[in-house]
């Protein structure tokens, strides 16, 4: 399994890590079962032209090299972006910006994009705002996946006998 230079570089020097003081919303994705958990904090403020932008961003990640590097990368990509721009960031964008990921690790880049989505979803919801359909669809998919994982989690733990 080979990581690109860029992945290694972000892993070594992760950007925007830690918990954000005074964040507007947090997106929590992943599950301890599969070994990747990502919490993404965003601070949303209006810019000079009155557009809502992600003025600050940070993350906390439990996961592998790829999970940490994609956390770092997604935070760089989203920082300063308007909400519509940030929503448009795909996991493919994250992976490409890192020069690609090993096939078995592609799900880590999905996680990063998902966390960003969730954070924006939580922000809009918290402010009683309308949720764009694409965001809503993604949120529902994530909820369903989480449920499935939790079921698998139970089976797994029973099998493990604890």
């Amino acid at each position: 399994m080979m990581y690109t230079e860029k992945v290694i570089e972000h892993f070594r020097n992760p950007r925007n890590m830690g918990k954000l003081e005074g964040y507007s919303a947090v997106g929590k994705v992943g599950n301890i079962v599969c070994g990747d958990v990502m919490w993404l904090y965003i601070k949303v403020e209006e810019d000079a032209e009155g557009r809502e932008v992600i003025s600050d961003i940070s993350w906390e990640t439990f996961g592998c090299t790829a999970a940490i590097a994609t956390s770092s990368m997604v935070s760089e990509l989203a920082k300063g972006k308007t909400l519509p721009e940030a929503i448009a960031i795909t996991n493919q964008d994250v992976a490409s910006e890192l020069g690609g990921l090993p096939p078995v690790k592609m799900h880590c880049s999905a996680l990063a994009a998902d966390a960003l989505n969730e954070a924006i979803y939580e922000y809009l919801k918290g402010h009683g705002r309308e949720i764009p359909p694409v965001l809503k669809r993604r949120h529902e998919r994530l909820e369903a996946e989480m449920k499935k994982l939790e079921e698998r989690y139970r089976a797994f733990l029973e099998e493990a006998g604890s």
Partner: protein
Amino acid sequence: MDPDPIYLDNSATTPLAGEVIASMEPYFSDEYGNASSLHRFGRRAHAAIEEARASLAETIGVEPSEIVFTSGATEADNLAIKGLAFAHPEKRHIVTSRIEHHAVLHACRWLEERGYEVTYLDVDRAGRVEPEAVKEAIRDDTLLVSIMAGNNEIGTIEPIGEIGEICKERGVPFHTDAGQAYGKVDIPAGSVDLLSVSAHKLNGPKGVGFLYVRKGIRLSPLLSGGGHERGLRSGTENVPGIVGLAAAARLAFSERETVVPRLRGFRERLIEGVMRIPGVRLNGDRKESLPHIVNFSFAGIEGESLVMRLDERGIAASTGSACSSPNLEPSHVLVAIRVPLSMAHGSLRISTGRQTTEEEVDRFLEVIPSVVEELRAISPFKVEG
């Protein structure tokens, strides 16, 4: 990058010892004959192999004719399990444990897919198989019991002697995978019928190993052909590899009395040092363990990134985390000893070798707290200090 990396992954593989390289060199381009050839090149190759066979047999107190050379422990395990199955098609049941190496587990699974029944014995929280459980699992149609001598992830030593006696009583062949234990701890070869060894775990070459096959045990070959190794394993003998395997074994056995206590000392030092870090768990048994393997779990961090961070700092180790495995599941061994999943993700295996120094161990102990701290700092799961 650290200019002089520290290798603490000796249960994955080991560097060739100087003595071993020296023993192999003559067989590369001078004594390069095929051991089946009649002429002097062949006779010398043949003599070298038989000398190796005799010296390996001696290490476990068996007859030279009971040693079958293979390409490693994976092949030895498969030859023992599938080879016995093919030779005794009427026996359709196998007893093994949940913590075997994949070479054993997947050979069993392969047979399961072909209609065999396999009993996977549970282990206790230290990873020990209960001999009584073996006794209860044996049936009239049991082909084989396969329980490893020492575990490759957590180091736990299994009660091979007791299990062997039970198998003997019940007339069931007993195989043990000694891939990690051979050369490190005493193996009561008198209690086993089949035993697997790999050279590269022993400062010997990759791609060679042996299966001890007690006289009277009938196997069907996996590799048919020219009839090498008494028809049990065909293929031109890897002469330098076999010579290197024997040299490595000789070295390991001759050094055992000094090396093994040293490794035990390192293990204790590692346990004491690492357990000072909060949120750490020792996986396996503190006492009943192979001398060179120690396995920890760190709460709140994931093993693959831990290994990669250590690598950045010039230290080579390994993990049983899901992210490091091709199927994205955490180590079956850690699951079997009931390490909570969150901790199973944060496992770290340190394995020392004959070339490991106290300075290296201390350097690791110096580095590990800060690496753990760094990773915990970016983790959503906080650990109480």
